[in-house]
């Protein structure tokens, strides 16, 4: 009876001790110096390993920071708090972390955009895109099958009932996973402080846009003339804002004949009001 317990205990315990001793000896013998600074930096990072900083892992970023190869304000998940913590460790100034949000540059909802066929395939934008560019007449717009929704690790981007993906400002960390996966390249990372956005990605000529989408940019160039800062330009029949210079004045908004330019704060307050 006692043997049935004793022997296994002794055998396994003995093996554990033996191997433990060997490993302890080996860890002395093969000890590798780690920069203590790197360890501290690593501990201050959130450990999400999302790659938003441009490094493969939090470990890699920590190493780069400790060696002075990388700026301390690159971690988007950690934001300002982590930047300050790293600044304290590295003894430098935190600066400000620019938070960027994924914006789906398309408002071609089921009502607004004309379809060219009925898609019955796999629920995946990349698959749909392989079938002559998806079911929309507009070859630049969001397909609304939610491939971005499924890759987002933060549950921050969703396809609305109208069939367009929309990101959630509160949850989005700007990691850019959705940007990479979207076959239409319709998602852009834009600084959160920029509120006036041209929600269109269509480079077609105005005449064609009028036929296929109610809210598409028709390249009339009115906004270009309206903008006091002169930061809107025409890029192949699509108006684009150079966000660095945009002051959110909104002068372009009321004159856009297709209502392609929107002020995010107004959208949000409208939702709240209704």
């Amino acid at each position, binding site marked *: 009876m006692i043997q049935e317990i004793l*022997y*296994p205990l002794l*055998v*396994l315990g003995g*093996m*554990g001790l033996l*191997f*433990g001793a*060997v*490993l302890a000896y*080996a*860890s002395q013998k*093969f*000890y*590798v110096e780690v920069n203590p600074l790197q360890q501290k930096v690593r501990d201050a990072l959130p450990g999400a390993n999302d790659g938003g900083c441009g490094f493969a892992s939090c470990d890699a970023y920590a190493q780069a920071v400790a060696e002075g190869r990388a700026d301390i304000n690159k971690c988007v998940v950690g934001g300002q708090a982590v930047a300050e913590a790293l600044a304290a460790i590295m003894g430098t100034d935190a600066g400000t972390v620019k938070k960027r949000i994924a914006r789906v540059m398309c408002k071609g909802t089921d009502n607004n955009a004309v379809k060219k066929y009925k898609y019955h395939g796999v629920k995946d934008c*990349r*698959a749909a895109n*392989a079938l002559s560019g998806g079911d929309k007449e507009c070859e630049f717009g969001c397909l609304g099958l939610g491939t971005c929704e499924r890759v987002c690790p933060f549950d921050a981007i969703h396809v609305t009932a109208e069939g367009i993906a929309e990101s959630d400002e509160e949850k989005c960390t700007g990691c850019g996973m959705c940007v990479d996966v979207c076959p239409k390249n319709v998602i852009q990372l834009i600084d959160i402080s920029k509120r006036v956005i041209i929600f269109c990605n269509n480079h077609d000529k105005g005449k064609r846009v009028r036929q296929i989408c109610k809210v598409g940019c028709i390249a009339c160039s009115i906004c270009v003339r309206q903008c006091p800062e002169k930061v809107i330009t025409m890029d192949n029949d699509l108006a684009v804002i150079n966000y660095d210079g945009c002051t959110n004045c909104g002068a372009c908004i009321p004159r856009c004949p297709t209502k392609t330019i929107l002020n995010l704060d107004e959208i949000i307050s409208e939702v709240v009001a209704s």
Partner: protein
Amino acid sequence: MLTNLLLILVSSIFVNNFLLSRFLGECPFLGVSKQVETATGMSVAVVFVMTMTAAITYLINYYILVPFGLEYLQIIAFIVVIASLVQFVEMVIKKTSPTLYQALGIYLPLITTNCAVLGVALLNVQNPYNFIEAVVNGFGSSVGFAFALISYAGIRERLALAPIPKALEGFPSALIGAGLLSLGFLGFRGLV
């Protein structure tokens, strides 16, 4: 005697190839086969761990577990052996080749849970092998593993450059390649 060992060697490398005939250890097979270089590093680590595992587990089984009638502890005892060996290899690689350590990443600790390694240990005690045969079988199996992994990495390196349909890029083409390679290994059936 010698022919017997040779037979075990050939059969474990080609006929009963762990990756392509028994389908054990597929995780590193898909994970570290993007470059021949990392695949080689992984293979060397696996050869070492597998051969040593085969030897140590054999001794533990026949000199400790069997005399005490503790065969039911095989799995847990073998896992202790494998885990410590992997730890050991990890330390050695970290010291001797930091770049290889980086490249192998999480796949190195994953050898611990690599079913091929445990598979070698368990299959060895199921077969009536003697010590030398067990070690040869472990070594042959790991060489077969290395052989399959490296040739597959070579295929994937070429695939990466080839113009393949968008939908098949990445894992789909890799899996199809693995399937074809496995079919190729079917040809060795009946060799031994």
